[in-house]
């Protein structure tokens, strides 16, 4: 069953393996010109610290910051590992030694979404409940998961209509056990709304991965976004 609300997200996430456990606190959003559907946690860090200004696929990106607020605090803690004071000093040291520029800083989720929507390559973050019209939401995965198996075929979860109509969404985290022949042996709900979790598990049980030498486990996160 086709469901455009999370098709690209799910596929990209699973291909790269386990998803950042805290990805549910903020959404990473990007201008539609950004080709990638997913981004690693280490890429996010190096983009926002201006160590790189393009993603692995070559797409130019430009970081956009929020000025304070819970999304900003969660983003700093989860992805950059430093407080706002240290981050501002870091940017100033770049600016006054010529090694970087001051990123755009906006005051609210709405301003961030509006700016990202109109600016080529812009990448920002907003709270997980913010409306994200006109931008794409990037899935986030951990950079180093060498045991990840390639997803061959997938079935998208069915978003329970009653939850969708009541604007109930969120991220569901699953532990998936993959047999050596690539079929899904077992799925366990690690976190998230139980009803959304049931829907996600039902779909994931029918996924098929590339065959491997032995049984492996991976963590999958699926975002049910009521605004999409």
């Amino acid at each position, binding site marked *: 069953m086709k469901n455009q609300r999370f098709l690209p997200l799910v596929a990209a996430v699973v291909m790269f393996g386990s998803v950042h456990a805290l990805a549910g606190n903020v959404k990473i959003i990007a201008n539609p010109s950004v080709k990638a559907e997913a981004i690693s946690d280490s890429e996010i860090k190096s983009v926002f610290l201006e160590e790189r200004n393009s993603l692995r696929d070559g797409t130019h990106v430009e970081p956009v910051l929020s000025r304070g607020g819970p999304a900003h605090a969660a983003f700093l803690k989860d992805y950059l590992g430093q407080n706002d004071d240290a981050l501002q000093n870091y940017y100033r040291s770049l600016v006054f*030694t010529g090694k970087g520029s*001051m990123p755009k800083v906006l005051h609210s989720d709405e301003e961030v979404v509006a700016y990202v929507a109109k600016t080529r390559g812009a990448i920002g973050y907003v709270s997980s409940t913010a409306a994200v019209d006109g931008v794409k939401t990037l899935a986030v995965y951990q950079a180093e998961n060498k045991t990840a198996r390639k997803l061959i075929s997938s079935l998208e979860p069915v978003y329970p209509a009653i939850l969708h109509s009541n604007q109930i969404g969120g991220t569901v985290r699953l532990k998936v056990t993959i047999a050596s022949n690539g079929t899904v042996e077992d799925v366990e709900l690690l976190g998230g709304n139980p009803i959304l979790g049931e829907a996600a598990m039902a779909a994931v049980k029918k996924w098929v991965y590339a065959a491997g030498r032995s049984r492996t486990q991976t963590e999958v996160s699926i975002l049910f976004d009521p605004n999409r």
Partner: protein
Amino acid sequence: MYRRTVLLQSICLCAAQLSLQAQEFKLFDRQVQIHGFASQGFVHTSDNNWLTMNTSNVGSGEFTDFGANASVQITDKFRVGAQIYDRNLGQLGRWHSSLDWGFADYRFKPWFGVRGGKVKTVLGLYNDTQDLDFLRTFALLPQSVYPTDLRDATIAHLGGDVYGTVPLQRHLGDLSYTAYAGHRSDSIYSGIAYVASQYKFYYSSYGGLQYGGDLRWNTPLKGLLIGVSRMDEDLSAKAKFINPLNPSGGFIPDNEHSKADWTNQFYGEWTVGRLQIDSEYRRFVNDQVEQVAGSAILETKVDVRGWYVSGAYRIFKRLKIGSYYSRYSVTRVSGGPLAPLFPDQTDTSLPANHIYDKVITARVDLKKFWNLKVEGHFMDGYGDSTFPDGFYPQQNPQGFKPNTNALVLKTSLNF
């Protein structure tokens, strides 16, 4: 000069009343950013005069600097920018503005980029940002490792850098590297020139090849950074002086060159929550020869070692406190016909060969762009009077006292 200081202070105060913001405008469809900063300090000392100022009476406010820069991202990978800088610290700088940095930067990949032009030299945690008062808690960086009178010696080079950041596998953090080569050119208003002037020895040029590198590891332990820097130099200078053995003979032209000149620096920084702890060790070795008409008249070997440990803690949103212990020692051995005039100094337990500085600081952020610092220094020793390390015979003709306490007030703005 006094009028200039007052004018700058007035500008700062007026600017502080406004909400300072960086300026941005478009030029040929490219976004240009303009930023600036300024600082004003005041120093009062209990005994010896310090940092080329007359600080021991009412104190001195000849402690001002400012800078402004413009930069633009030309393409996704290519950016250019430049910054002017000016300072007046007692007898140093003397309001002679200079190009602080100005270069083109092309980043091919996150792990490989190049810069060319006048580039700030990476050496330890703070060498390239030592002028940026607003970045740190302390009014003065530990002078054992970052002597402000030797700013010109390390601050920038005219040449190029290669740089990059390489992520390590297995969650081992990442490594950042910088390698550089270029030409160092000191102002004739530097500490080196000033300390030499006590002997009626006047430089017309001082500089030379400077090359080195820096490697820093952002460890997997959250907030912990460790690194190492190395700098080598091949310096030469032109000067004139009056021979102390024949004062009536007038000025004699002098050439100077270094036989060895290197710096090693090791450092670590740990940030956990509101607490930041830094520690660095620097060793600087210089062996230089003075020549007149092709003959060596004086060879001086200087060995400087310094280290510090600092801690800074943010108590409230707008209040930070900090403290550091800084330990500096210098030894000097001379040879050649003029050597008897410069007796060897090798005993670092003497106050003439060390400075041990205990420091406490409070920083108040009055606005996001404006801060005020109050700092106390409690110093044991006054260093080598023939080497630029804060205490100069010109300001202390009565001789040095073994201990100095200092009160430093400083305010800075940035946008």
